């Protein structure tokens, strides 16, 4: 009975909410669409169990529709492959059907959940879930499931560039496979510490990108992305 009531309620309210969520997504998209390109400097902190790498100073380049490059300013950096999806236009750029996912709260802020189903059946993205702050019209969190590269999760916090829908900080979570070196190649020094391999084969990796500065819509050469 309860379920029935719920279904009825859902059926009744859906059109209203759908209208609402569609416009919410559209306005978030509009904000993002205003950015043709940007260049940002920032710091990337990678957090993957098997990867012991320092915080990298990186430059992030973006150009419409979906070109993105994370470049290490000095030294070597491990850039997560799915990093391209850190720009929202990658998610909101293509055609999709919006499904209302209801309400939630992120850090105490009420958000609307929108599930985006790509209309193109061959798209790598299977499903994206975005959490939108309806007051500021900003995407606070996004989860993208892809065919090839597993699921990514993005958490954003905004500051000076909120007007462009560009975050100050992104926490990017992704799936990593277990790292295994071929045996007998390394001849390592065994200092006696015992470490058991964990059973979880697919682990979560995190990359935390803090943006320092954005230069927006000043034009970027395509050559940067091919290098």
């Amino acid at each position, binding site marked *: 009975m309860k379920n029935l009531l719920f279904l009825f309620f859902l059926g009744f309210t859906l059109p209203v909410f759908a209208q609402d969520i569609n416009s919410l997504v559209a306005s978030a998209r509009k904000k993002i669409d205003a950015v043709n390109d940007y260049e940002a400097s920032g710091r990337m*902190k990678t*957090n*993957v*169990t*098997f*990867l*012991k*790498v*320092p*915080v990298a100073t990186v430059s992030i380049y973006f150009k419409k529709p979906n070109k993105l490059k*994370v470049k*290490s300013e000095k*030294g*070597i*950096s*491990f*850039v*997560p*492959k799915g*990093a391209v999806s850190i720009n929202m236009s990658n998610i909101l750029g293509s055609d999709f059907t919006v499904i209302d996912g209801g309400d939630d709260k992120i850090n105490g802020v009420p958000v609307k959940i929108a599930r985006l189903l790509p209309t193109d059946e061959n798209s790598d993205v299977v499903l994206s879930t975005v959490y939108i702050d309806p007051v500021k019209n900003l995407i606070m969190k996004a989860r993208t499931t892809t065919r090839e*590269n597993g699921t990514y999760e993005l958490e954003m916090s905004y500051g000076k560039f909120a007007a462009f829908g560009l975050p100050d900080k992104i926490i990017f979570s*992704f*799936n*990593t*496979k*277990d*790292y*295994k*070196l*071929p*045996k*007998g*190649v*390394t*001849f*390592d*020094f*065994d*200092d*006696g*510490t*015992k*470490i*058991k*391999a*964990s059973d979880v084969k697919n682990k979560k*990796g995190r990359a935390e990108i803090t943006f320092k500065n954005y230069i927006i819509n000043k034009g970027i050469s395509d050559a940067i992305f091919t290098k």
Partner: protein
Amino acid sequence: MWSLFSIELYKISKRPRTYIAFIAITAIVGIFQFAFKADGTNYMNLMLQSVQDTFDLDKTKAINGYFMCYIILNTLLIQVPILVALIAGDAISGEANMGTLRLLLTKPVTRTQVILVKFAASTVYTIMLLIWMAVTALFLSMYIFGVDDMLIFRVKGEESQILQITKDDIMWRYIAAFGYAAVALSVIAALAMFLSIFAENSIGPIIATVCIVIVCTVISNINLPVIDDNVKPYLFTSYLVGWKGFFYIGTNADGEPIKGSLENWPAIRNSLLILFGHIGVLLTASVVVFNKKDILS
């Protein structure tokens, strides 16, 4: 004592055999450098097998001079004991074979002096080899491949890890690693010289030393808990690769490397002490045995 030492060095410098090792090192290093210059990304692909799907990495940057040296040392420091044995295994037996041992010992020098000086000379030779390795494997690689951050691919316990050391944090590690290698190889020199006391030609001690090193290395690399706990700690070969400890950078709770740090300095220090212990025992044994020995050659 000093003149005896300078004479030993002079003799080593004059023998053709001495230079075989330098040529061998140059050849091995050259082959590595050529191979990596031509097809280094393949090696990177092998090491990064399971990471490639998840991460993008500038592989040409990763194959730099510092990385090359590590890769070369990884292989070379397994072969160099043979080269050290070539000289140290000949120290006493070679002289016995040439009949110069009795000539030497009928001069006013003590046998203890002879042993200590010969060991010191072998050590100097070992250090020269390492310096040559630094010149070819490190400095020449830095020149050919440039410098950048260094990636260390490592198996720790049952886990594999990739460590990244920033380029301004590497040189001191190499200096320390070469220093450690000098101590480790001096153990080989002491062993070869000890065996050389018992023989009247140099082939025996050289082969015996190489065999001991190979057998112990093989046992050291058997990954079974029984051997890990009961055998490995007592094999000096387990400590030969301790130089790598200087490249195991310490990390904070977030897994972020701390510049200038070592993951496990006490382990390196203990290994060094164990190696010095080996040198002490082998040298003492050499002095005692050699002093008691009747020179019949």
